[in-house]
């Protein structure tokens, strides 16, 4: 007999988790299944809503004001501004360590490459780093960490015209970490405040690190580190460093593997657990039954195909990166249900000549009706009980717009709520 639930969410990224949360919180029996590591480990952990219009205007101060003018195929037009606000309120409630909910106005967060990124929500650990805060900044890089060069980022921020003085220094991390140590190695060491050997003497790492930074500090009120300041106890690590330095401490978001992204994933899984949602990770959905209405899907586990059935389904398998949308030389497709993905026949029309051109591929994904149900080429609903959320949706370029998290959270929320409502 099949494993059953009211709502089955396929995909464990931001959209899938939000969707399952929204569904579980209204009392639906909800299961989430996910296959690979979620793409949150690649994400900066910032929760953007809209930073730039599709025409490239921005950075936008008010993301909500621009939404009614987006193209009609944009997922934000499908869910509407009110749903986006509700979804973010849910997010604010279940992920308490994020900031930015006090205002509609975007924040500008320094990036590890030295630019600034507009975002609606940011981890508490990044809040002292905002570019609209006038206090002077010291950025601290680590000699063996190639992803963040503090003097380079500082010079770049200066070129960007930030309203404060910013300086970058490179220090050697105390202790004897290998040159290729992973970010999690630094984070664990800081979490536990383990001892490190400095000039033949063992000292707690937070103290030893603060001492090296203190030697470089020249009255700056804020000190920024790459995002390695703890995993389980990031607030404790920041507070300890802040006390020792007499300055506010913040993290600069980084690329993969991104601790802020992983922390966000953990927080959402915890919230789903608290809300009574069930989840199973590590096994792919490989097939489904049903014409016009999905009866069951099959999950491959240790070589066996296990049927899972639900009243309602949410497809939140991601875009090209997460393999919720795939392609070969001839076509672009959605691999589980074969939902229609509009694309040009000639693959040389999928991209533009410049690296940051207006690429078609960046907008690949399924199209939906106003209820987020995928539609075929003729506009008709493919399955009555399937909704799509997050990057598997097409019609928007999240990278150019800086809208990926906002679309995932708002469509995830809307799809999860609707699925739960239909199931009950």
């Amino acid at each position: 007999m099949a494993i059953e639930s009211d709502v089955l969410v396929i995909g464990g990224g931001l959209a899938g988790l939000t969707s399952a949360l929204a569904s579980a919180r209204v009392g639906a029996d909800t299961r989430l299944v996910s296959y690979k590591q979620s793409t949150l480990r690649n994400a900066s952990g910032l929760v953007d809503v809209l930073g730039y219009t599709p025409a490239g205007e921005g950075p936008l101060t008010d993301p909500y004001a621009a939404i009614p003018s987006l193209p009609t195929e944009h997922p934000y037009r499908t869910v509407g501004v009110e749903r986006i606000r509700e979804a973010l309120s849910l997010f604010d409630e279940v992920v308490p360590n994020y900031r930015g909910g006090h205002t509609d106005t975007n924040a500008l967060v320094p990036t590890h490459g030295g630019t600034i990124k507009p975002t609606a929500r940011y981890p508490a650990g990044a809040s002292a780093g905002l570019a609209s805060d006038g206090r002077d900044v010291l950025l601290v890089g680590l000699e063996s960490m190639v992803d963040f060069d503090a003097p380079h980022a500082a010079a770049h921020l200066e070129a960007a015209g930030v309203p404060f003085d910013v300086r970058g220094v490179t220090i050697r991390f105390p202790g004897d970490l290998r040159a290729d140590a992973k970010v999690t190695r630094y984070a664990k060491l800081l979490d536990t405040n383990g001892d490190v050997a400095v000039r033949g003497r063992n000292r707690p790492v937070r103290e030893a690190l603060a001492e090296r930074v203190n030697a470089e500090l020249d009255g700056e009120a804020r000190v920024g580190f790459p995002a390695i300041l703890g995993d389980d106890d990031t607030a404790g690590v920041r507070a300890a460093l802040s006390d020792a330095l007499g300055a506010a401490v913040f993290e600069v978001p980084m690329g993969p593997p991104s601790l802020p992204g992983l922390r966000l994933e953990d927080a959402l899984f915890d919230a789903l657990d608290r809300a009574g949602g069930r989840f199973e990770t590590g096994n792919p959905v490989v097939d489904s039954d049903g014409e016009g209405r999905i009866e069951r899907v099959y999950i491959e586990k240790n070589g066996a195909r296990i049927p899972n059935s639900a009243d309602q389904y949410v497809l939140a398998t991601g875009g090209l990166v997460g393999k919720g949308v795939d392609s070969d030389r001839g076509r672009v497709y959605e691999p589980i249900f074969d939902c229609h993905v509009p694309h040009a026949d000639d693959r040389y029309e999928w991209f533009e000549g410049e690296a940051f051109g207006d690429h078609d591929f960046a907008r690949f994904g399924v199209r939906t009706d106003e209820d987020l149900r995928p539609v075929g080429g003729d506009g008709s609903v493919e399955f009555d009980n399937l909704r799509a959320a997050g990057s598997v949706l097409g019609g928007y370029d999240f990278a150019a717009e800086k809208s990926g998290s906002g679309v995932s959270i708002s469509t995830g929320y809307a799809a999860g709520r609707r699925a739960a409502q239909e199931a009950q």
Partner: protein
Amino acid sequence: MASAPHIAVIGGGSTGIGIARDLSMRGLDVTLLEQGNLTHGTTGRMHGLLHSGGRYAVSDQASARECIEENRVLRDIAGHCVEMTGGLFVKRPEDSEEYFQEKLEGCRACDIPAEVVSASEARAMEPHLAKDIDKAISVPDGAVDPFRLVAANAASASEHGARIETHSTVEDLIVEDEEVVGVEVEHASGAGERVHGTEGGREEIRADYVVNATGAWAGRIGDMAGVDVEVRPSKGVMTIMNTRQVDTVINRCRPKGDADIVVPHETTCILGTTDEEVEDPEDYPEEQWEVDMMLETLTELVPMLEEARTIRSFWGVRPLYEPPNVGSDDPTDITRDYFLLDHAERDGLEGMTSIVGGKLTTYRMMGEEISDHVCEQFGIDAECRTADVPLPGSEDFSVLRDYMDEFGLRSPIGRRSVERLGSRADEVLKTDGPNPTVCACEGVTRAEIQDAIGQSGSDLNAVRIRTRSSMGNCQGGFCCHRMANELHDEYDEATTRAAWDELLEERWRGQRHALWGEQLSQAMLNYALHATTQNRDNDPADGDPVDFAAFDDGVEPADGSPRGGVATDGGEYCGD
């Protein structure tokens, strides 16, 4: 004339750089001028085959003999640039038996070691060969890294006093009394190493003799002095796979044809190629059918290629030349041999010789012949030593030991660094600070990047070709910003930003021909990392000023009440 004649060599491909090394080792004063980076033209756009000569053993035995001779020389003098993979000419059932025998006899006639191997032996060597192949001939083909080879030649030429100018375009030849006496050069960023943002300038370089080694561009240089050099540029595609599906060079054993070779190269395989005459070596169509043909035709030899991931494709232009009286219609009929055109004998123009045709495998021999010719003009009797003196990096292979412990590098990164650097490993890898990995796909460490920056100025594409950083599966998604970070130690932020953007654009160009399946997924990830996480596409440093005061400064209102949004439980479906 000064104590030694001054020779201007135009062209920084393998031919030009080989000439520069040879002449400077013979004591002549050399200036080499290249319009782009070293290897900018055809040299940097080839499949990396170190020919055994087998490919020419039927159609062009003179070229075949030169190839096997130079194949042996390069193994000696450039060991750190060469990987002796061995090669197979594979016969499928539909391929001609007669041609197979001709190939075998041809190899033997040209002194190319060649053995027939059965289908099962061939498949034991290369398990991914098609099950239905008939048999194969084994030959000493290999893989050569053209970038490393040219960089080593340039280093050697510099050691012998040559001046190497990249990003320096020859705008005109200076001709006086029917003699070429120098060149007019436009430097993109001032003389010496390239530095972004440095003002360029024009320079008149007087020379006692000029060598035109510009390959497919030779006709343009000829035009500047009113002489015809009838180069027939012919384009060919090369498609790079994500991994080494084969470890041996795989050739199809049949007469000329497209899509008939797979060359294992570093971490990848390169599929080649097509052969289409083009008008302009800088502006020709890069066509989808060419990429599709590589995958579809070569699948007949290596079936798994059908489903494999390609990471990019690139095109090169062969600088084919044939003497005026031959008149081949099909570019595949044009000889692969090289020709030395003395414009005094040919056109009554003193002071310049052009060298055209040829191939990378015989670059040294071409350099020797033209250097002999130049020395003859000045009555200089100096022996060529380029076949005997190893290139920098290949002097002493005792250094190819395990550097893991000594430099704190993890294998296989240590092994790969040392393979690339050869005997320079000590000098490059012994640094004071930690030596983290910058490019994980290709195992390139900070020390190697810094060494390359020292050689190539602020040009990250020049760093790339010296180190292979950003040339692996991720195509720079994870390391372009790291390379920029390394550059910022020495160059200012604006210079670094220009070099960074240029690297991103270069990496994008070749990937466009591989955008489906895994590589499209990779391209989207790279785009997201660069645009979303780094906001490289909307860098405020490049654009309009930002009104920082209009954005959230992080200060929350004192009463803690939200200014926007709605209460969490305010939705109409709320049930908890």
